[in-house]
């Protein structure tokens, strides 16, 4: 028989207001096995904890029930308290009488009665608790960063700085991500490439960082501290080691009509290409969709001109397996497709562009060499209309329900740069709200209005009609209470941003949860913003929600710090609540093995004593406690009930059921 102590917490008035704590402790004192029962204002306080420890010694308690807040809150606290007083931490059970009782009930009588029942259930469980000891599992001292944009690069650099190996997997031929396409950054207006490319080079030269470019994550197995990841390195038909990045092939390739995705299709590139001059790794890639050699076997020009002999048309996708202790997701974002919003005539006129396209049109390395020219006729635009919130802040069926966060600022930047470079242009910005929370952000926006004379109009564009070389913009001016008709030369759409389309399948591989918009969810929205609820998975950058560059970098470093904290440990304490088979009852039928998500169950042939001094070989299950995470799937799959779960055994759960239904 256990000697159980019951400790009822008031949680100030949080519990005591709707639960008669005195009565609870009195009634529970009558339960079998309860040798001591009391209540106290704040059980989690120093004094409360000391009271528990003292009672353990004084009454020789073997089990403890704390009636308090959720076990998710203080189970660990009270377990440690009791451990210090000399009893096994798993001899402690929490009855959740705050979140699941006092906070949801108003009637004190009802609350008290329920609290007593919850207390009884916990007592019934403790009677069957057994001391458990946690095993440990080793931590692989290597991290994987998925996505090589600014978020991924920053995370990798920080982890590498702490002395750990990091691999970056990037699906594009080069790292750098969206930031490589951006011209200037707000609110400082410094050149994006100038601050990004040195970081790319740092990453490439860092001995601890290995970049898998043009690669994807194929599959993920394992768990925190010991992930087993298969990486697919897509065939780029160029030997990365031999290629010097001289670029000769990209000049000689006869296939000239390939839309240049780096410039968002605003100009063309060759079938063999290096995305841009500062690409890392600076290695050519053959676009298999366009290469005549790969499609028809005729051509081979690049191979002929390559002095390094790096071209290899026979290259196949390669697969690598690698062990990691932690994984960081940094898959970033993309602007949404605009086919649902063709009232803006995006599909009808080349002069209606997205902000990211506009970014390329302003960029010195872009298709126009940095001179702002209309894509349709190469003329200078004189009237430019910016439209905010295209597809953001929508009803679910109309678009994205969230604010894309970065558009107000980059539009102010675009408007300002236009007016600065070309003072003869009229710039209109149609906005619903201008959202500028951030250091120096509102000042920046005000400058666009006050110093640069950008026309900010509260209202929305309703229709864009391309006609006679102009874009006839019909819009509302809500403050002026009029409908405006502007003959514009260009219309720039601030398209909503959404998570990269690879994020959803990746989340499934990682078993990391996502919200309805496909952004990764955090373990806690406020207190654990860079961790996924899945242990060992961390979040960096816009994959978690819309973010600008400084925020992304901050989160990237935060994620790195979390990873470093994990990799510093040699071992992780395992979950002691693991499955355990009773060999005498095991049929060896493999049902449990089939439902185990971790492959923790194996089988051995074991010799048993049969009747009449005979021996019998039987196949029985064995659980690897370092691998078992304690879900319990196997316990239900087992028909004979040979498999049970420590800490949540059949008997324990049934005792709770009995106590509740009594």
């Amino acid at each position: 028989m256990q000697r159980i102590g019951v400790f009822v917490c008031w949680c100030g008035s949080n519990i005591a207001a709707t639960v008669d704590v005195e009565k609870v402790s009195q009634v529970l004192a009558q339960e079998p096995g309860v040798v001591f029962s009391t209540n106290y204002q704040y059980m989690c306080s120093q004094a409360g904890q000391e009271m528990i420890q003292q009672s353990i010694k004084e009454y020789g308690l073997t089990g403890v029930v704390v009636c308090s807040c959720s076990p998710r809150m203080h189970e660990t606290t009270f377990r440690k308290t009791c451990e210090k007083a000399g009893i096994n931490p798993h001899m402690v059970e929490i009855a959740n009488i705050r979140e699941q009782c006092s906070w949801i009930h108003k009637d004190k009588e009802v609350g008290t009665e329920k609290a007593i029942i919850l207390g009884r259930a916990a007592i019934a469980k403790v009677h069957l608790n057994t001391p458990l000891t946690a095993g440990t599992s080793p931590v692989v001292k290597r991290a994987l960063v998925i996505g090589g944009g600014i978020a991924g690069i920053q995370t990798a650099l920080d982890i590498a700085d702490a002395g750990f190996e990091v691999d970056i997997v990037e699906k594009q031929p080069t790292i750098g991500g969206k930031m490589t396409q951006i011209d200037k950054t707000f609110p400082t207006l410094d050149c994006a490439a100038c601050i990004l490319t040195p970081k790319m080079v740092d990453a490439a030269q860092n001995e601890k960082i290995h970049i898998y470019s043009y690669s994807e994550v194929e599959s993920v197995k394992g768990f925190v501290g010991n992930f087993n990841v298969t990486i697919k390195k897509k065939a780029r038909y160029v030997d990365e080691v031999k290629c010097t990045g001289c670029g000769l092939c990209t000049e000689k390739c006869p296939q000239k009509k390939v839309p240049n995705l780096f410039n968002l299709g605003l100009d063309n590139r060759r079938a063999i290409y290096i995305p841009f001059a500062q690409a890392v790794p600076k290695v050519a890639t053959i676009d298999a969709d366009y290469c005549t050699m790969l499609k028809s076997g005729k051509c081979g020009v690049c191979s002929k001109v390559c002095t390094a002999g790096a071209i290899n048309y026979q290259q196949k996708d390669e697969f690598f397996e690698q062990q990691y202790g932690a994984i960081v997701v940094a898959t970033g974002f993309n602007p949404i497709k605009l086919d649902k919003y063709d009232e803006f005539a995006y599909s009808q006129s080349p002069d209606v562009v997205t902000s990211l396209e506009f970014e390329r049109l302003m960029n010195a390395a872009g298709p126009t060499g940095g001179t702002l020219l209309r894509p349709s006729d190469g003329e200078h635009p004189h009237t430019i209309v910016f439209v905010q919130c295209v597809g953001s802040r929508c009803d679910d069926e109309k678009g994205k329900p969230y604010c894309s966060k970065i558009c107000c600022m980059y539009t102010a930047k675009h408007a300002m740069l236009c007016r600065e470079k070309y003072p003869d242009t009229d710039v209109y910005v149609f906005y619903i709200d201008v959202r500028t929370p951030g250091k120096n952000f509102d000042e920046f926006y005000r400058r666009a209005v006050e110093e640069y004379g950008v026309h900010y109009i509260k209202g929305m564009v309703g229709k864009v009609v391309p006609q006679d070389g102009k874009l006839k913009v019909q819009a509302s001016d809500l403050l002026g209470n009029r409908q405006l008709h502007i003959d514009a030369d260009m219309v720039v759409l601030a398209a909503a941003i959404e998570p990269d389309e690879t994020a959803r399948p990746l989340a499934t591989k990682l078993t990391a949860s996502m919200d309805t918009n496909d952004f990764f969810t955090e373990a806690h929205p406020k207190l654990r913003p860079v961790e996924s609820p899945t242990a060992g998975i961390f979040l960096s950058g816009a994959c978690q929600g819309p973010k600008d560059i400084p925020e992304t970098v901050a989160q990237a470093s935060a994620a790195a710090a979390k990873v470093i904290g994990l990799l510093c440990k040699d071992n992780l304490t395992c979950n002691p609540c693991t499955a355990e088979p009773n060999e005498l009852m095991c049929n060896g039928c493999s049902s449990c093995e089939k439902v185990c998500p971790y492959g923790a169950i194996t089988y051995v042939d074991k010799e048993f004593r049969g009747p009449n001094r005979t021996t019998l070989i039987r196949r029985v299950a064995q659980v690897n406690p370092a691998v078992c995470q304690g879900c319990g799937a196997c316990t239900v799959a087992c028909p004979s009930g040979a498999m049970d779960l420590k800490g949540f055994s059949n008997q324990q759960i049934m005792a709770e059921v009995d106590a509740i239904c009594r």
Partner: protein
Amino acid sequence: MVDFVKRISGVNPRKCMKCGKCSASCPAYDEMEYHPHQFVDMVETGRLEELMNSKGIYTCLSCFACVERCPRSVEPAKLIEAVRTAVVRQQDKTHLKPDAIPALLDDELPQQAITSAFRKYRK
């Protein structure tokens, strides 16, 4: 009355984020003294009387541009129709009288124009 309009239109004016896209899309904007976005706001703030006396309710083309383009699915056209319905259902508030029709006709005018005018403007 406001509740009546909300109920028969099925529109929740509180969903409006006041972006003005309805008024930006409206082809009849200049023919109305209250514009679609104001409509939504006036229903929400209970200024129905003014709306019901407004000529604008008869100039709405029911072209559904505002319905289609509203980012919040507020659907102002339904509100306008509901207000118009509320008006023409009253005694003697019929907007179009049969006597007035012959003068408006021409040889080519399709039947549907007349039928629909009756449906829209009479009880």
